[in-house]
């Protein structure tokens, strides 16, 4: 497998993580990202996922994976237990977003958040012209089956960080298998943002 065939959000996160660091992946899915980081960057990794099948897949890859929800999974970790806490495509699905983000910033020295951009121009068009809840590559669910409970844009998230005194260290904006550099809140389908306290 070639590196550029890996999911673009995984590549973005890969760029942000230092070699030989420790990583907690909240919502690790089948463990592809952790596997990549362990293999290529020799990180020490721990995954958490609520889905049983995800645990089997992760353990099959030789990863440490915990079956449980993110909302209650962080409390036992001491402050600064990990160099990075990753919340990729999972923060918009947790009920208590602010608590999780605050706890992630406590447990990890840095936090990487990957999320779908609700203000992507096609989403705006569907809502504005079509009058319907948007369905886009990064927001692929119809309104009645979506696991997402929070809908926010890149500008929303950056504004939230500013209001909470959370430092944005780096931000990568992603389109359909490419980086987006101009007007990301309009043209990016998703974002990967590195933040710290």
């Amino acid at each position, binding site marked *: *497998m*070639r*590196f550029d065939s*890996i999911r673009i959000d995984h590549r973005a996160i890969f760029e942000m993580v230092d070699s030989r660091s420790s990583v907690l992946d909240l919502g690790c899915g089948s463990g592809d990202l952790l*596997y*990549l980081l*362990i*293999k*290529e960057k020799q990180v020490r990794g*721990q995954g958490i996922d609520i889905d*049983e099948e995800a*645990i*089997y897949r*992760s*353990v*099959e*890859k*030789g*990863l*440490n*994976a*915990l*079956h*449980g929800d993110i909302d209650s999974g962080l409390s*036992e*970790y*001491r402050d600064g*237990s990990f160099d990075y806490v990753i919340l990729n495509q999972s923060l918009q699905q947790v009920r208590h977003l602010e608590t999780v983000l605050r706890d992630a910033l406590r447990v990890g020295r840095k936090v990487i958040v990957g999320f779908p951009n609700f203000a992507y121009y096609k989403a705006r068009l569907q809502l504005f012209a079509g009058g319907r809840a948007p369905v886009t590559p990064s927001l692929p669910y119809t309104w009645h089956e979506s696991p997402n409970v929070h809908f926010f844009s890149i500008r929303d998230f950056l504004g939230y960080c500013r209001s909470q005194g959370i430092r944005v260290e780096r931000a990568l904006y992603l389109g359909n298998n490419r980086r987006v550099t101009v007007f990301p809140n309009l043209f990016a389908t998703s974002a990967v943002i590195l933040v710290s306290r």
Partner: protein
Amino acid sequence: MEKKGVLKAGAGSMEAVKTQYFTFGDLATGGLVLDSGEKIAPVTIAYETYGALNSEKSNAVLILHALSGDAHAAGSHAQEQSPGWWDAMIGPGKAFDTGKYFVICSNVLGGCGGSTGPSSINPKTSRAYALDFPLITINDMTRCQKKLIEHLGIEKLVSVAGGSMGGMQVLSWLAMYPSSIKSAIPIATSMKHSPQQIAFNEVGRQAIISDPHWKSGNYYGSALPAKGLAVARMIGHITYMSDTSMNEKFGRQKKNTTEPFKFTSDFEVEGYLRYRGDNFVKRFDANSYLYITKAMDNFDLLEGKGPEGLFRGTDARVLVIAFKSDWLYPAYQSKDIVKACKRAGVQVSYCEINSTYGHDAFLLETEEETRLISHFLKKAFYDYEVTGRYEV
């Protein structure tokens, strides 16, 4: 003086396995000093092995049995049909692959499957110990297993694994001998019994003790406290199942009974429990039941050390497994083990398998367990780094 056990494995295709015996500590050298401060000498431990020990002696896995289990975990004895209690998990190509690993299972101290227990002969009196047998603990059981492992020349085990009380022994290994194991697999277990768990065990014990044949434990050579032990087992079986699994297995199905009497076993479930209870009496010693359930109730991994100190400095990897419908050893108890691992910085995986079988699930959900355990063991054994998939 230590009796030399036969180290030949040779289970191969798992035909005709044999129980072996390891005896240590004679009266002169003092024997085994227990947690209670008392001594037992000599101590015999019954064990079976499957697969072959490699020349580095680095491929051994120790399996630990539950309350009513024994050393016969897999394969079949000659002249016997019934396979071992975890046969679906141990064998060539199975979760504990005997093509790769040398699998050991021993009967616990205090048991009645060939290891020294209350039904063994007390060398001081030449009669069965009965209640002269000292109180034992889960850690005492583990100490005997450690002796057996040393006797087999094994310094480090690939893994220790077991469900229920077997899981308690796994935790005991993790706490007492962390440097002797590469990994640990506690299944459907707890760091300590809850009042509910103690309560069920106490009802079982009282059933035995109230049986007039029990005679303060001195029933050897005369009528056994069969009714009491059977009732204890019946209670056990209720707690091992779930509401759903009982419904599925029995419903309100009635048996065809012709006995014209009140309080016969009309329902399928009643017949099942009686059958299980009566069968148990044929193979299990009532005093062993008392001693072992007490050891389980007294087990408290956190005793004497705060939760902060537990597992600290352990580099063994841990795989914790729980089952959704298990109300006897509820998943929260497994999560407490996970929390302790997290606090100690131990590498841990956890899965709560979706099962309707209740506590029995650890013996029945072998497909899911195999998926987890086979890969987890491979990682522990080969210690492989995830390698060579991407060209960066």
